[in-house]
């Protein structure tokens, strides 16, 4: 059994032009075959050969060629195989009845065959459509954004309609056009626009040469499917935007409360000291006056540092940081950082542990100095009165490390990552947030821009904290030694 062969013989497709050539060929074959077996079989039974021929032609071509074949077979059967042979005349009532029955059966077979052929073709097309939809859906499922969806859709439309289509975005998307421009194309243009939309939202139009109604229905289905995915990506984008919005809001809130508290606290002292000097100047002891003046000075410096921090943070945030690298002596960075914090350092016991012959580093000196200032200031702030702060500098595995240790309360391991976040201060009651919550974030930003890191661990002996600024040293150290 070779069902494939039989099926191919019966239902194999033939193009319309060739289908009319099939008719005489089939009739000739049928006549030949009948002539061969006419000696064996009674003539009346030869009509079966002709009926099979009609059936085959109907399956291969269509109704019209099949009917033509039926008529041709009728004539051929009549001409060759009914007495008197080689005429179209029929004498016996038997033959007349056979011929009439044959003509009726042939017409019926032609009809049935053509219908079956249509069903089979339909089923094939449906299977093909389902297959391409499956491929299309799989491609859509992995499409991450609107452009990817559009590409998948264009591909699918090309497969279905055989023409290139164009996706025209509507609404607030780059390259989008006004809807009115597209929905009313000139009627004679031969273009067709299909909406890509869900119930609530119209995303785009698909522009293509007008296809047949069946293809158009398929294209519509593809567009509807795409719209669902676009809706999903739109929701994803909206969620992402909302997340960023929330984060921005959190930062804005933190910034506002930070400005409210940290910018105003030094001002309270400055304004208080200044008005005290003006109002009570006469009755104040000279020492008290000096104290107030000194307070105005130191609190102004604190305010200035805070504003510097805000500006640095803004620069980091906008990515506008350009490094002016130069070969710099770490000792110089340490010295100028300590000079800037001279007043704060008076309150603590500073111990320096600097390795001799530190190599030069290729950095933007002012930024690394600021990072060190911020880390030192943080240490001072969390130190107990007269607590010890150790500043160590050394080379560890091709990195320059500046380590600042304090004897403060330390930072719980769970919070060690977060201390570098903007506006984060380890909370110990409402008023403890003396710091701006920016210093460490800035230190990490500046050091990170140099390819370095700032990390925090337990302090020496497990108490307090140690912040380590690590800067990569250049692989080629030779240059550092050159003047």
């Amino acid at each position, binding site marked *: 059994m070779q069902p494939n062969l039989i099926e191919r013989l019966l239902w194999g497709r033939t193009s319309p032009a060739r289908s009319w050539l099939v008719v005489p060929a089939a009739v000739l074959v049928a006549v030949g075959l009948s002539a061969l077996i006419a000696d064996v079989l009674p003539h009346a039974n030869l009509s079966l050969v002709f009926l099979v021929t009609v059936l085959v032609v109907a399956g291969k071509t269509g109704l019209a060629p099949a009917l033509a074949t039926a008529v041709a077979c009728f004539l051929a059967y009549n001409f060759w195989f009914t007495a008197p042979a080689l005429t179209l005349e029929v004498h016996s009532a038997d033959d007349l009845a056979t011929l009439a029955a044959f003509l009726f059966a042939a017409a019926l077979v032609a009809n049935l065959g053509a219908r079956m052929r249509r069903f089979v073709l339909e089923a094939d097309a449906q299977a093909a459509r389902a297959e391409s939809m499956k491929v299309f859906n799989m491609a859509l499922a992995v499409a991450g954004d609107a452009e990817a969806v559009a590409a998948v859709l264009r591909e699918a439309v090309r497969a279905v309609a055989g023409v290139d289509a164009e996706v025209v975005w509507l609404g607030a998307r780059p390259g989008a056009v006004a809807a009115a421009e597209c929905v009313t194309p000139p009627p004679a243009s031969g273009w067709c626009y299909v909406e890509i939309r869900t119930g609530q939202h119209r995303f785009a139009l698909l522009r293509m040469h007008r296809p047949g109604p069946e293809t158009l229905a398929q294209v519509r289905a593809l567009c509807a499917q795409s719209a669902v995915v676009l809706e999903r990506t739109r929701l994803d984008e909206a969620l992402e935007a909302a997340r960023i919005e929330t984060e921005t809001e959190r930062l804005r809130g933190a910034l506002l409360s930070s400005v*409210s*508290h940290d910018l*105003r*606290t*030094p*001002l*309270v*002292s*400055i*304004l*208080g*000291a200044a*008005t*005290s000097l003006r*109002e*009570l100047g006469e*009755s*104040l002891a000279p020492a*008290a006056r000096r*104290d*107030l003046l000194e*307070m105005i000075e*130191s*609190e102004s410096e604190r305010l200035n540092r805070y504003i510097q921090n805000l500006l640095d943070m803004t620069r980091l945030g906008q990515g506008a940081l350009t490094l002016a690298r130069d070969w710099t002596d770490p000792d110089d960075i340490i010295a100028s950082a300590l000079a800037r914090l001279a007043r704060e350092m008076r309150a603590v016991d500073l111990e320096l542990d600097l390795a001799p012959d530190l190599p030069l580093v290729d950095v933007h000196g002012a930024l690394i100095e600021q990072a060190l200032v911020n880390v030192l200031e943080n240490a001072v702030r969390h130190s107990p009165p007269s607590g010890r702060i150790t500043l160590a500098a050394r080379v560890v595995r091709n990195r320059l490390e500046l380590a600042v240790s304090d004897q403060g309360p330390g930072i719980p391991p769970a919070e060690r990552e977060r201390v570098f976040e903007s506006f984060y201060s380890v909370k*110990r*009651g*409402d*008023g*403890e947030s*003396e710091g701006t919550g920016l210093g460490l974030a800035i230190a990490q930003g500046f050091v990170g821009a140099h390819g370095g890191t700032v990390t925090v661990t337990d302090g020496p002996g497990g108490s307090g904290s140690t912040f380590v600024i690590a800067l990569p040293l250049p692989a080629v150290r030779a240059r550092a030694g050159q003047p």
Partner: protein
Amino acid sequence: MTTSARILVVDDEASIRKFLRISLEASGYEVREARTGSDALAQCREDPPDLVVLDLGLPDGDGVDVITHLREWTQMPVLVLSVRSSEAQKVAALDAGANDYLTKPFGVSELMARCRVLLRGLPDVPDEPIVSLGDLVIDRPLREVRLGEREVHLTPKEYALLNLLASSHGKILTHQHLLRAIWGEAHTEDTHYLRVLVGHLRQKLGDDPAHPRYIVTEQGVGYRFRER
């Protein structure tokens, strides 16, 4: 001055404590300091001061809690300092029992004025039968109000409001306090009653809300009688 008033300054900022100490001492007060709420409560218990100047943002909790604790056993005056300018915070502090507040930053003269008012006397002692401020004279036994020579006719509610403000010695009275005193417990949320009443009273007293001579609005918090 044989015994100077003792003021306890509670703030976690060393520089603020310092300038408060210098300026208050220069004005003749005796100053003590506390950095935390618990320290402040301990000092109040052991040797009660005459006035507490209290920052609301403290390392060991909200200053409002300190007021609540104090008010469980003492009516010593409390002046609240806060960098928070939100009205809700001020109202919370005043409702908890604070006597007045000052928003940071402030000039030292403002601080001195508030301290003087709070140290002058307790508000619930109706000490003066006749209160006068500029042209305004309130004869409390007669329930009469005069502006210069002219007598001002007030409705009972208007008089009650004026009397409450006048007898509070320049201390702030919150909306809730005034509403409760004049209209009763059921109307503490009806601040519009109060705004209308204050408007009428100011009109009769010829007081300009923009430059008040008698009744000062503390936006979102309450009213105070202008300090004499």
